[in-house]
């Protein structure tokens, strides 16, 4: 790796590790100090290595510099050491004895502690996702703004408010206890699930950004798997779901960032390795008696890794959606369930059920009705597709609907 690439590479991989350890050391009250120290570390390294050349083990050097900088900081900020170091209660030592532990284990533990702090229900979900990207994945305000399709002022305020809330609620950055894990894991998983979806379902044209969001969500979920206390069936189920979904990442996006529908995807582009990983973690998820929505969604995603339409596939998908809707209703699950019903029980049944859904504000509802009426009553199908068009402003959706419409337009 060239020197010009090395620093950005290390910044991406090491910044968040070092900063997580310092966040945990300093507490939520002083996260800016932690960030300043790590930024200084990288600045110093790039200056120094530019002059003297890259050392033999750059990561180890970085860690040493970060440790020294932290110790310097503690030494030179007398106010900090007198007043605030008392607050460094997590380590339970005075600053003279503080060992800045940058071992893999402590890095992982610190990141896990940060996940639980950041995904605290005192903040709304969108703030949790923003904070996770900012504090755990070291995304800049601009990058997060791009991901959320908004401007950087909005994100800046959202992050400030989120951090302030964590401070006023005195949220601790520490290894969560067993009962806390059971109580808070659902919120943590939901945030990671939403973070993944932000990348996977976004209509953002920036494909590499979307991929990064998915990868970060997977990385954080994997941290939970690596820890014995948080390695629960639902975590494995969520990770499995992410593996199955991302196995189709390349196949479902065309070069303009538009979505390629499932039936038009080139299965050669499906990532076999990720599919196998998904199966592996779905197996692990089935140990125990918990059945979360992630289990059901992962199982549905598993069946979608079989491209051919078989009776068994669609019957299984239908029953999984039947169960999923009983755990948690969502309009999209209701629509997907009705599509599976058409495949498993026939269009006649599905039309009757679809008419009952009454999701009259949802363009996907009319797109589904258009699909169901195709070849049964093409005039009706056309009407529904037209209604669907009038309800969406997304260009890629319009293209998809338009393509389906061609099948029912009389020639």
């Amino acid at each position, binding site marked *: 790796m060239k020197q010009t690439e090395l620093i950005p590479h290390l910044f991406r991989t090491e910044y968040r590790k070092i900063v997580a350890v310092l966040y945990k050391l300093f507490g939520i009250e002083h996260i800016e100090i932690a960030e300043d120290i790590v930024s200084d570390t990288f600045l110093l390294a790039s200056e120094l290595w530019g002059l003297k050349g890259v050392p033999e083990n750059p990561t180890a050097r970085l860690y040493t510099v970060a440790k020294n900088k932290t110790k310097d900081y503690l030494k030179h900020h007398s106010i900090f050491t007198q007043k605030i170091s008392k607050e460094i209660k997590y380590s339970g030592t005075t600053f003279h004895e503080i060992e800045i532990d940058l071992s893999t284990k402590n890095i992982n533990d610190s990141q896990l502690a940060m996940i639980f702090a950041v995904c605290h229900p005192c903040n709304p979900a969108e703030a949790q996702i923003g904070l996770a990207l900012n504090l755990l994945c070291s995304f800049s305000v601009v990058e997060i703004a791009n991901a959320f399709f908004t401007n950087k002022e909005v994100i800046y305020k959202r992050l400030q408010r989120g951090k302030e809330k964590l401070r006023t609620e005195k949220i601790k950055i520490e290894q969560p206890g067993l009962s806390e894990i059971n109580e808070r894991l659902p919120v943590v998983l939901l945030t990671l699930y939403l973070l993944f979806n932000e990348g996977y379902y976004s209509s953002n044209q920036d494909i590499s950004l979307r991929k990064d969001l998915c990868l970060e969500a997977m990385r954080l979920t994997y941290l939970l798997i690596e820890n014995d206390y948080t390695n629960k069936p639902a975590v494995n189920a969520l990770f499995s779901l992410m593996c199955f979904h991302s196995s189709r990442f390349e196949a479902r996006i065309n070069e303009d960032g538009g979505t390629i529908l499932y039936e038009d995807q080139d299965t050669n582009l499906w990532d076999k390795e990720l599919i196998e990983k998904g199966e592996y973690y779905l197996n692990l998820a089935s140990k125990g008696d918990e059945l979360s929505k992630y289990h059901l969604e992962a199982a549905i995603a598993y069946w979608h890794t079989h491209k051919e339409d078989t009776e068994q596939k669609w*019957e299984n998908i*239908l*029953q999984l*959606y*039947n*169960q999923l*809707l*009983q755990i948690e*209703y969502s309009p999209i*699950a*209701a629509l997907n*369930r*009705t599509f599976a*019903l058409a495949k498993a*029980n026939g269009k006649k049944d599905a039309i009757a*059920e679809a008419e*009952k*859904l*009454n999701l009259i504000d949802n363009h996907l509802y009319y797109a589904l009705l258009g699909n169901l009426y195709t070849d049964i009553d093409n005039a009706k199908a056309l009407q529904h597709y037209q209604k669907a068009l009038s309800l969406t402003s997304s260009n890629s959706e319009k293209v998809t609907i338009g393509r389906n419409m061609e099948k029912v337009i009389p020639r």
Partner: protein
Amino acid sequence: MKDFLLVFRTDYSNTPNASPDEMQAMTKRWMDWMGGIAAQNKLTDRGNRLALSGKVARPGNIITDGPYSEIKESIGGYSIVKANSLDEAAELAKGCPILTIGGNVEVREINEM
């Protein structure tokens, strides 16, 4: 939206023994029916099945085998749905698979205490 109790009744003594295939088909019909109600966001609680035999406590410290010897029909299970009106709840009950084996569904509004 209000909650309504659906009570499934049929004469179980009179149901012919079903083959495994028929039983599986029946289970699917129940699952699809429940899924359809859930897809309308109208399922409050899928409820449970009840065991066929039971006992009834009566005045005077008397326990009898039950539920009722005078009618053959017995309660096989219950679910709770939500709907805007009794009519709407009854509409949901129309697709219940118990109707295909000669049973019926009683629909009652739940008045919270």
